[in-house]
């Protein structure tokens, strides 16, 4: 596993947690919300009434592996 042949001089220092955390929380939440809309909205749970979102992403939801209906 360790026999990588890449340049060893790359700076690989950890990004401080306090710098990472705000990005992770805000962007992470928005991105998870986007995945929720593709994967589950108007299926198991509904934030918006009707079936339009469900029907629109229908094929993608099936093919991406989410339970659809």
């Amino acid at each position, binding site marked *: *596993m*360790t026999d*990588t042949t*890449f*340049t*060893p001089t*790359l*700076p*690989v*220092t*950890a*990004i401080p947690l306090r*710098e*990472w955390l705000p*990005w*992770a929380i805000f*962007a*992470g939440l928005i*991105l*998870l919300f*986007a*995945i929720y*809309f*593709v*994967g*589950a909205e108007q*299926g*198991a*749970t509904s934030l918006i009434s*009707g*079936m*339009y979102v469900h*029907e*629109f*992403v*229908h*094929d*993608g*939801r*099936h*093919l*991406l*592996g*989410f*339970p*659809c*209906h």
Partner: protein
Amino acid sequence: MVRTFLVRGMLVGIVAGLLSFGFLRVYGEPQVDRAIAFETQMDEAKAEAEKHKGMVMPAEEPELVSRPVQAGLGLIVAVMVYSAAFGGLFGLAFAFAQGRMPGNFSPQALAAVLAAAGFIALYLVPNLKYPANPPSVGNPDTIGMRTALYFGMIGISLAAMIGAINFKRMLTARYGEWNATLMVAAYYIVVVIAAGVILPAVNEVPERFPAVVLWNFRIASFGAQVILWATLGLLFGALTQRAYANGMPRA
């Protein structure tokens, strides 16, 4: 720094989504169409049978979104949103793992390892337990339970994967890189098998649903995810490696 990785992840996700969409459009959509044809056939047979019994059938539901839109614009929007979102999350995971992940990784290798871990934890293992299903497979009444089980399986699998990576850090000093990797891989497999055994099975494939369509549909879904994660890992790694070689990490 974090911003750079986030933006780069989302951009790479968009590229991955385009490739994935192309694959699904060609190999996935025919399976969806065949599954819908089967569903229509079943519905018609049922309607015919009930007409014989003198029952009044409810009028057809109006189509909210036409099939061509579902298979075209709808599919590309769904896949792009999904891919860009996972790309962004991948960028955030990379930003966290860099310098923290046990093992001496170059950016390229780290991106590839993270993408492989993401594919296994978020798609491969949950789908071994709860595989992707085409239209007409699945009882609408159980959608809530099935969704909860599927996301639960993803949660367990992801937690086990994160645990495995952390345990590897502890075990490497004592047992060496290779043995530690084998040990935590075994740990991950045991946890997800246990979860798979404990969680209830879902089998709602209608009788006489064509097995070939089911298989091809699942293979198409699998292929799209392989394309997505491989692109995320390899392209993100290449861009990050190049950015470091040029001195500054830019998106």
